[in-house]
Structures are given as structure tokens and as C-alpha cells.
């Protein structure tokens, strides 16, 4: 599988925001709506491991994206995913539209597996529209009312990566970092701000 960028020129990469993942990709997947670009594949990960997603899931930077059925999402070939307990709401236009859960991969059999440095962000649509906060009501599009068979909990969207450098938050930490040496020289330039007394 390529980078999914289709006929985009070099330099374009998949660096989605949480909001894009939930609103544009996961919601459309759940609602059986056509999705352009249809770049995120659906996986049955029971036979996969986090380290062999290359070629099977959509790469973006050093992360991999895929859909999976919620029931299948946690037990993989060589181990299992454990929730870390950290969850974050995903908002769009001031409304909660989904939840982002952080999981860690343990190699071996539950519950005695060995923790690895593989991490998954698991994106869920909100269970019940209008449930937890008043803001939620009205977000779920009216399309759903005509499709009572749509189960918004059927699919989750996974983002998997190996966390060897601490936190990795896709697009938003990239590009605006300076190297340590650059930072040093910048601080040294402060001397220029000082003008000597005449």
C-alpha cells in the first residue's frame, strides 16, 4: 500500500487531526457513507502484530492507521492491548464527537504479558448522542434517523506507533521544533539585543 496520497505531489503525507479522524473518517465509515479519499483500510488484526502493520495499514509519519471492528480490536497475534486509563474527548465545532483512548501493547497472554513500547490510540464515536453533555445533542446527523440499523459502535479507528521518543502527537509536534543546536544559537543571539552605553 502506498502513502494514500494518490496523485498528490511529493511531500504530502497523512497527518490527520483527531477531529478529522472522527468526523471525516470514522463517522463516515460507521454511517456507510462514501469516503473520499478512501485510504484507511479495514483490518482483522487477530493475525497481526503492531510491528507488522507496514503494507497493511495506512502509514502517516511513523504511525499506522486502520479501521477494525470493535469486538476484534484488543487481542492480536502475539499479545493484547490494555487501556492505560487515559481518555480524551474529541471535539468538533465545540461539540464532543468522539473519544480517544490510549492503550499499551503487552506481549504474551493476558494478564501476565510484558509491556512493550507500542501504543494505540483507539478512536470511538460517542455512544449516545446527547448523553454526557448538552453540547452533544444535534451533532449526530439526521441521516442516521433513516438508518436505524447503523451501529455507531461497530467500528473503531486505530492509530498505532512505537513510542521510542516519548510522546508522539502526529502533525502538531512536527515542523515547529528546532534542533538543540539551533536553540542554543538562538539564545546566544540575545546578546545582540544589548546595546552598549555610549
Amino acid at each position, binding site marked *: 500500500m502506498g502513502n*494514500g496520497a494518490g496523485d498528490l505531489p*511529493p*511531500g504530502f503525507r497523512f*497527518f490527520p487531526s483527531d477531529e*478529522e479522524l472522527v468526523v471525516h473518517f470514522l463517522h463516515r465509515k460507521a454511517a456507510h457513507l462514501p469516503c473520499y479519499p478512501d485510504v484507511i483500510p479495514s483490518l482483522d488484526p487477530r493475525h497481526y502484530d503492531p510491528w507488522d502493520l507496514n503494507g497493511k495499514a495506512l502509514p502517516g509519519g511513523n504511525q499506522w492507521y486502520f479501521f477494525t471492528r470493535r469486538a476484534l480490536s484488543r487481542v492480536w497475534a502475539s499479545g493484547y492491548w490494555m487501556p492505560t486509563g487515559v481518555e480524551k474527548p474529541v471535539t468538533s465545532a465545540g461539540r464532543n464527537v468522539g473519544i480517544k483512548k490510549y492503550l499499551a501493547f503487552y506481549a504474551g497472554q493476558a494478564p501476565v504479558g510484558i509491556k512493550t513500547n507500542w501504543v494505540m490510540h483507539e478512536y470511538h464515536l460517542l455512544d449516545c448522542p446527547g448523553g454526557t453533555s448538552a453540547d452533544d445533542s444535534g451533532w449526530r446527523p439526521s441521516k442516521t434517523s433513516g438508518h436505524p440499523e447503523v451501529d455507531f459502535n461497530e467500528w473503531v479507528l486505530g492509530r498505532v506507533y512505537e513510542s521510542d521518543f516519548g510522546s508522539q502527537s502526529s502533525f502538531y509536534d512536527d515542523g*515547529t521544533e528546532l534542533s538543540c543546536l539551533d536553540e542554543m544559537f538562538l539564545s*546566544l543571539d540575545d546578546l545582540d539585543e*544589548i546595546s552598549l552605553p555610549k
Partner: protein
Amino acid sequence: MSITVNGESRVPPGFRFHPTEEELLDYYLRKKVAGKKVDLDIMKDVDLNRLEPWDIQEKCRIGSAPQNDWYFFSHKDKKYPTGTRTNRATAAGFWKATGRDKAIYGGVKRIGMRKTLVFYCGRAPNGQKSDWIMHEYRLEESRDDGSHSSEGWVVCRVFKKKSHYRIPESSSSKNTSSVAGAAKTKEIFRSCSEGTLDQIIQFLSRSCKHENEFPIVNPILTDGGYAVTASRGASVESQAKLPPLENPSAISLPFDCSPHVGRSSYLQDSIHVLLSVDQGYNEGPEVNDWAALDRLVASHLNGQSSCPEQAAFSFCPTINGLLYGGCGGDSQEYNPADMNLWAFTRAPDSDSPSTSRRQSASVD
């Protein structure tokens, strides 16, 4: 074809323009130099003299997604018709190079260089540093295949620096001790040899790593207006950030440690050491001088609980000279001996009365 058609972005959701440095140079800039059209017209030509950094984001928008960095081509115009320096001044300020240029590799082969620039508001040399940073990439000038130069074209990436490494500093220390310190250490480091530059950088890098733990010592290296690499062998300056003037304990260090030392002999010693240190720098300093500087730093980091060894001890009057020489009114001659006399006539003023008396007595 453009990146937007009828106002609609052609970049699908989730995708961002996030090129590698190799892609910027080997694909985009090479295409530009060869006069070929770049796909989707994603990179505009920007006249850096006419565009302020905060206007770049509007001009260089790619699609509709939020962006943290912006890309464009720029043509380097000469500052002077015969010179090689580039004019990067705008109406509101100017771009100033910082640090060393970094080599960019494509595989094992060097394909170009990256220069880092900072935007200053105002006019040199009194500009106010901003958080706007530019990486300017240029192709390697002479290519193996004989084709020559990038015709003055560069590809640039502009972004706003996250400022989370800055150390808050009081305005008092900046306006007083730093000024004098800068002046003096400029002198000290003026004639550093090229080999010394690397030592300075190593030294500063080491200090840099600890700057959060030890905010007292914050050496500053600058280049007199241009990238250090561009002027290797030229002047290199450093600054030791000193404790605020309100803190007399550091200033009275020599006397607290050795109250029995008579002032005149101590003064002679310190002048002697100071002169020899200066001489050492002028003659191509070796590791010894750096060891002395390290000890100086160490003595300031460790506080005044123990008596410093000779080298650091001798350095202290120099520091007093830094502190007081520059704010001492008319003393603009940076004669080391004068500086030291200033140090000893002025330092006790802010010290304890007993020390002052002792000093004035021994002076006469």
C-alpha cells in the same frame, strides 16, 4: 493546475504538506531551478523584502487545513551589487542568520545546505527578536555533472518557534551586569583562533544542557551579526551571565574567603593573572584557559561555601570588573588594569560596611 479549484482545496482530508528536507531540495528546488512548473503550484515565489512573516501564512496557504509551517521559493538578492551578502530586510524588520549551516544529505551524498534565520522587528542593530524562524535551503553550488548553481533560488520553510526553553530573566541583570559582561568578554574572546571556536561551542553546549538547573551561568555566544560559520575565524564573543548586583555575597567572594589577604598584593596578583589570561587568549589558547574558565563557572555554580582554588580565585576580580567597569560612568577604555581598579574601588560600596572600611584603608 492549482492547489485550490473554485475555492475548494484539492488536498484531501487528513493530508498535509510535510516534505522532507530531501524532497524540498531534490524535487522542488531542482525543478524550480530547471524552470519546470511545480505540481499543483503549491509553492509560490516570495519576495522576502516585501513580505512580512505574518503575511506569509496567507500567501502560502496549502489547502484549507490549519498549518504550522509555510513553504515558498525565494530569490536571493544581493545586499550590495558587488558583495555576496543577501538582503533580507522587510518594511517591518529583517531576517538574520543564526547558528551554523547544516548539510542536507540525499542518501550518502550532500545535496544542499540549510541556513536558519530569525526575524527581528526593527532595524539592525537594535532589532527585537521575534519567534519567527526560517529555514532556507539551497542546493550544493557545484554539481558533479558540471551544471552550475541554483541561480540564486532557495526554498524556504517559515514557522513560529515554540518558546518553551526560554529562561525568564530579570530586566535588571540584563541592563546592567549583562552589558558590562558582554563588553568585557567581547574583548576576551575577540581574537580566538578558529580551533578555539569549537572549544567555545563545546563549552557552551555543555553549559546549555544545564541551563535549566543552573540559571546563574548562561554563556552567550554571538557572531557580530552573521552566522558563525559564515565568519569562522572572525570575532567570537561570549558572555557569562552574572548574579544580580543586588547580591553582594558573590561580589565579596575574594574577601570573605581570605580576609587576611592585603588588598594591594591581592590586586597585583589579580591584575597579573588577568593580564596573563588575556595574553593567553590572544596567543591561541589551549585547554588550560578553558580549564580556568570551567573553574570560574564552577566557582559560581558552587556558591561561596568553600574557598575556590587559585584560578577561580584570581578570576573573581575580573568578574567584578565586568560588573562595575561598564556602569562606572566614564570608564570606556577596556584596559584590564583599569577594569580591575574599578572593581576594587566600586565593589565594596555594595558590600558590608566592614569590608568597605578594610578596603579603603588598604588602598590608602
